[in-house]
């Protein structure tokens, strides 16, 4: 008997079962070990799945042996194979290296529950990405959200504001999920099916129905809430600021990316080009808020004193870029979104890990505490520098490639103001990154905050540098961007479901 055909199911099952088992072990070290093993195994499985998709095309897995739309199917194509590998890869880097920061930030008797929640969250995100069923998507979103609320609240042992941030996140997240549920209900009522592919076929004949249009609108609004698109972004800024370091690193690099992936899936695969962009003004709606998110998020980031908060607001702006690309409705724009998705996951994960190192040594991450750390923590400082350059999008980083695509896509669509917004956003990024680097490299320590005792443990800077290496590789090698991503983007924008 071979397990090869079962890989799509195992990708979700391994972290899920590991999460449940870890919840029972009651031993901090063992919990960490199991979690690390599970996340690395999951990453290997997603790579195997991606290779299979590359070789065979779309992989379909009928859960329970019931062919869709009677049963639930997993459907993995080039796009979600990429996102699956991204999510699992980030988990495989962040979970095994999280031990030191978790030991510092989470009470020792709760490590088992902490790692269980992390793995269940990862399982939820992987499930969301792999599923081909709209209602299954809702259930899985709720798993990843519910775990995320609890994980954010765990930041309370460092700062009590984690609790209010978590509560706000819960309220916004639940409203978003409810809107999604309502929207799916309208689409289900109009089509009679919950399977995404089947729904796409049936929606093609129903473009005139107000029920369908309302459903589309509520799905988009619900997803915007879940992605933290401007103007409903405040929860994310707070949650990323106060959550435990490793949770922020994981969520900043995966959760919003999964949200963007679902939006692409709905807008392109399920609704299709005509319903999304011709009948409904999805593009105008998303473009407007994406541009606002870029400008407002970057301006907010410039004003921040706490570096974690600065990075969180920078994430608000980055979501703007991601949404902007997908709202352009062209292969070029989508390529931009996909490259940016990968690049931003790597860069932001690395940056939050590096800032986590500063928190580990200095007890906080305000501009004061970062002053002059380059002298005693050169590797951490290097990670912050390279990551910052990646955020700006200087050449040789992935950020450059993605912004290039976005500008080209905007100009191709004749939307030169959008291209201007992308450039302005980059200039604003220069402002906040340079301010940060100036403090890190040229600040005088000792006057405002004590100098750190030394470099943080390797488990902070090593994964950060590894992720940044990935980002640079993305910027330098044309192969990945030209091949896999362009293929995925072309297939989606070509209107093929």
């Amino acid at each position, binding site marked *: 008997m071979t397990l090869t055909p079962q890989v799509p199911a195992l990708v979700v099952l391994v972290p899920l079962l590991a999460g449940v088992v870890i919840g029972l072990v009651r031993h901090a070290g063992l919990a960490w070990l199991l979690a690390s093993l599970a996340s690395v195994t999951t990453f290997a499985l997603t790579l195997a799945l991606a290779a299979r998709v590359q070789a065979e095309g779309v992989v379909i897995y009928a859960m329970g042996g019931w062919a869709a739309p009677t049963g639930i199917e997993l459907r993995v194509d080039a796009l979600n194979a990429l996102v699956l590998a991204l999510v699992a890869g980030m988990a495989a880097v962040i979970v095994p290296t999280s031990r030191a920061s978790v030991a510092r930030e989470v009470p020792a008797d709760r490590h088992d529950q902490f790692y269980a929640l992390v793995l269940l969250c990862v399982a939820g995100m992987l499930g969301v990405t792999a599923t081909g069923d709209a209602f299954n998507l809702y259930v899985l979103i709720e798993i990843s959200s*519910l775990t995320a*609320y609890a994980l954010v609240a765990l930041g309370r042992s460092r700062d*009590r504001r984690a609790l209010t941030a978590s*509560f706000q996140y819960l*309220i916004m997240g639940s409203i978003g999920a409810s809107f999604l549920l309502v929207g799916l209900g309208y689409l289900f009522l109009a089509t009679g099916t*919950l399977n995404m592919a089947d729904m796409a076929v049936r929606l093609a004949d129903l473009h005139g129905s107000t029920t369908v249009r309302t459903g589309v609108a509520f799905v988009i609004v619900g997803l915007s809430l879940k992605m933290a698109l401007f103007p409903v972004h405040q929860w994310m800024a707070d949650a990323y600021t106060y959550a435990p370091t490793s949770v922020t690193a994981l969520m900043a690099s995966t959760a919003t990316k999964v949200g963007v992936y679902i939006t692409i899936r709905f807008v392109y695969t399920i609704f299709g080009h005509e319903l999304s962009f011709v009948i409904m003004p999805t593009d105008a709606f998303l473009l407007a808020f994406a541009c606002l998110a870029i400008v407002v998020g970057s301006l907010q980031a410039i004003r921040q004193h706490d570096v974690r908060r600065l990075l969180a607001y920078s994430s608000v702006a980055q979501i703007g870029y991601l949404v902007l690309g997908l709202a352009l409705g062209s292969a070029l724009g989508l390529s931009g979104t996909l490259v940016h998705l990968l690049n931003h996951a790597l860069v932001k994960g690395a940056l939050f890990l590096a800032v986590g190192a500063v928190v580990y040594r200095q007890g906080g991450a305000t501009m004061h505490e970062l002053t002059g750390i380059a002298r005693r923590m050169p590797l951490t400082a290097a990670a912050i520098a390279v990551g910052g350059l990646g955020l700006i999008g200087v050449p040789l980083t992935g950020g450059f490639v993605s912004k290039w695509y976005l500008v080209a896509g905007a100009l191709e669509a004749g939307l030169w103001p959008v291209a201007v917004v992308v450039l302005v956003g980059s200039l604003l990024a220069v402002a906040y990154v340079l301010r940060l680097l100036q403090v890190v490299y040229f600040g005088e320590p000792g006057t405002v905050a004590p100098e750190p005792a030394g470099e943080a443990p390797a488990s902070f800077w090593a994964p950060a540098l590894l992720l940044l290496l990935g980002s640079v590789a993305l910027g330098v090698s044309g192969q990945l961007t030209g091949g896999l991503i362009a293929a995925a983007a072309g297939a989606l924008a070509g209107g093929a479901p």
Partner: protein
Amino acid sequence: MSLLATGLFNLLNYWVYVSLMMIGLYAVIAKTNLVKKVIGLSLFQTGIFIFYISMGVVSGATTPITWTDAERLRLGLSRVEVAPERAAAALAAVEEDGLDAARAALGPLAPADAARLDELLARPYTNPLPHVLILTAIVVSVSTMAVALAIVMEIKAAYGTIESDEIVTAELETARAARS
């Protein structure tokens, strides 16, 4: 006016669900008390349940649990006037040869009774799928509520209040104290 009239007859459940969602959403946004917000969220979510279940309703249908022909016939016979021995014969026939044979064994009925019996024998089922979806949604909503209330309790322990405006004030004071 005609829109309102048709709506009242055909879509009333949907409009009730819309108003429940509005009430819940209002409470979530407007109330400052965190428990009240959680309650509002609960109202908001239960509104959606009405929408889904109403969608699954089929006029004159019965609950989606498969009835055997004999069970259908037994229920049908209890609702019409029929001599006991003929009913017994029909019940015996249904076990052997199915509903048509039973109907024949029953012999002629009063027209009203016959129509009623036929209707009961051919009763459709409501749609089970929305029921399943809502079972899931109910469980999700109570799980969310449990986590939300746990967070609220911790907020009370950390701040001494569960009023959002008082929490904001408390934070502002902390920030001011830190600055001076």
